[in-house]
């Protein structure tokens, strides 16, 4: 009896801890830019914060396809590009349009979803590798189109001079405002994902991930469910693209290359497929790590150890540490290989994937041990 009580208490504690943790992360996210006002960090970091927030949105969207539905999309950045270019075309001097921001925002989402639908309709019958190849090709087609459709997109020159968004009369024109705008959008999307996950669609997606034939036999309309998953994830990319274009004030095709798609896939896989905290952690880690490493070696360490401590390092290492950005993909590749070997479920795994990848769930084991312990205790009590 005592022990079961203890177990319940433990469970309750872990639940409370989780809530506290989520609360703490949210709080930190909210006050993060204020560190700049207090003079603790440079504007660079606030700017980086906005960029990270945009990628968190992207990773959350891609997670719906990869983590929830179990399909691979290697051309995800194309939907981001479509969102960004929609905003760029309809709110810049390029063609002389200037639509209000809310309309732009919806339009970016709409176009991304429309293309998601068009791509998904004929291709979602494909499975596994084939779907990955088709989406990869789609990503390249979009980039090449943007590169060559000079009359509208200005080709490789890109579209400059995108107007600042105006929301309820407030002009969004500095990094702080962008940061809070994106954060608000992330929270909105999180609520949407949460509801979707617990809905029929969420269950259908998870069933598809587990076993397509069984899902069909359960009465799930397989192609519809896949298409919907594709469209919802495109919507997120479209929204992220809209914010990104407004923030950068400039878009060009070179930004939307295949490597960016890979980067978002890495965020989802490293963070933990199907796990929302994991995906967010993955996006934050992959986006901030290069910057943190660069700053560590370029500014922080020299300020502690003297300007020329690096000159004692071999030149190759020096190069590597200063130019980390160039070797980023190399390191990510290595990180992914290591993760797949030692922690295939990601940084913060979802429960289902954890079960999938480890035959015996340690928590379950613990629980059975506890129950056994309870039984033994009870037996002892009876003996007395």
């Amino acid at each position: 009896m005592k022990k079961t009580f203890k177990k319940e208490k433990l469970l309750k504690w872990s639940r409370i801890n989780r809530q506290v943790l989520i609360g703490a992360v949210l709080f930190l996210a909210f006050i993060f830019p204020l560190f700049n006002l207090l003079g603790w960090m440079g504007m660079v970091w606030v700017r980086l914060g906005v960029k990270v927030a945009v990628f968190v949105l992207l990773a959350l969207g891609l997670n719906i396809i990869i983590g929830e539905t179990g399909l691979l999309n290697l051309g995800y950045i194309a939907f981001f590009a479509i969102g960004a270019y929609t905003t760029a075309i309809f709110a810049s001097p390029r063609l002389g349009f200037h639509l209000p921001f809310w309309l732009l925002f919806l339009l970016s989402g709409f176009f991304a979803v429309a293309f998601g639908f068009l791509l998904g309709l004929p291709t979602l019958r494909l499975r596994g590798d084939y779907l990955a190849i088709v989406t990869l090709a789609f990503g390249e087609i979009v980039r090449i189109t943007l590169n060559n459709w000079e009359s509208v997109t200005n080709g490789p020159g890109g579209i400059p001079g995108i107007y600042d968004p105006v929301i309820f009369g407030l002009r969004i024109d500095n990094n702080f405002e962008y940061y809070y705008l994106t954060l608000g959008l992330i929270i909105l999307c999180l609520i949407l994902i949460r509801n979707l996950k617990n809905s029929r669609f969420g269950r259908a997606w998870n069933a598809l991930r587990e076993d397509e034939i069984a899902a069909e036999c359960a009465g799930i309309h397989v192609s519809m469910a896949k298409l919907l998953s594709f469209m919802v994830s495109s919507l997120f990319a479209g929204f992220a693209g809209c914010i990104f274009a407004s923030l950068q004030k400039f878009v060009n095709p070179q930004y939307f290359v295949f490597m960016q798609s890979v980067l978002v896939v890495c965020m989802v896989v490293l963070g933990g497929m199907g796990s929302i905290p994991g995906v967010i952690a993955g996006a934050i880690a992959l986006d901030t790590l290069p910057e943190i490493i660069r700053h560590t070696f370029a500014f922080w360490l020299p300020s502690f150890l003297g300007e020329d401590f690096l000159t004692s390092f071999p030149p190759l290492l020096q190069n590597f540490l200063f130019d980390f950005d160039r070797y980023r993909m190399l390191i990510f590749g290595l990180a992914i290989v290591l993760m797949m070997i030692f922690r295939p479920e990601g940084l913060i795994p979802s429960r289902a994937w954890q079960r999938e990848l480890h035959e015996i769930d340690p928590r379950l084991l613990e629980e059975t041990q506890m129950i056994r312990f309870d039984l033994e205790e009870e037996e002892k009590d009876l003996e007395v």
Partner: protein
Amino acid sequence: MLRLEKVQTHYGRIEVLKFIDIEVNEGEIVCLLGGNASGKSTTMKTILGIVRPTSGRVVYRGEVINDVPTAQRIKMGIATVPENRRLFPHLTVLENLEMGAFTRNDKLGIQEDLKRVYQLFPVLEERKNQRAGTLSGGEQQMVAVGRALMACPKLLIMDEPSMGLSPALVDQSFEIIKEVNKQGVTIFVVEQNAQAALSIADRGYVLQTGEIVMEGKASELLKSDKIRKAYLGEA
């Protein structure tokens, strides 16, 4: 209730089903026997709409359903226990059962059916939070049947329920089929294990390389020399 009329099915250019006729009446247990590559599974897939017949008609409760998609057929009351059971191995038993009721909206009815399934298989209630992939073969079979029953089917189609089960479990499995049938579900079983299937069925068909070569009452088929030689291992 279900009628296949001169159904012909192709995989590419290969003719798998050659104008077969099968009829399942309401309340019956009908079994379809046949060896490997006889077209048993294709017959089942044709009924479920996973493959479409190239000619002939599939009629369900007086309606031609040739062009009805699978999901819609499930909604119309055709449920299935697929070959190899095909559970969602990483979902819990309860989640698996709930997936069976995917097409339904009546929460009360679903709760009632869940109770019914638990009554039929008390083990499942004990293990409802265990993940389905960790169950034993017999228990997995129970989950598969339970999941199909959660769709509140009028017609239950079972593909090789004896596959991968020990002899004792095969008997148990067919007992369950009988029990489900008593509750008012019409059953169409596709089987290799002729003895076990015929012992519970009302009628049977024998499929050989895509053609129905024999049909009749189960008790008569059991006595037939041809069947005894071909399927029951008697010389």
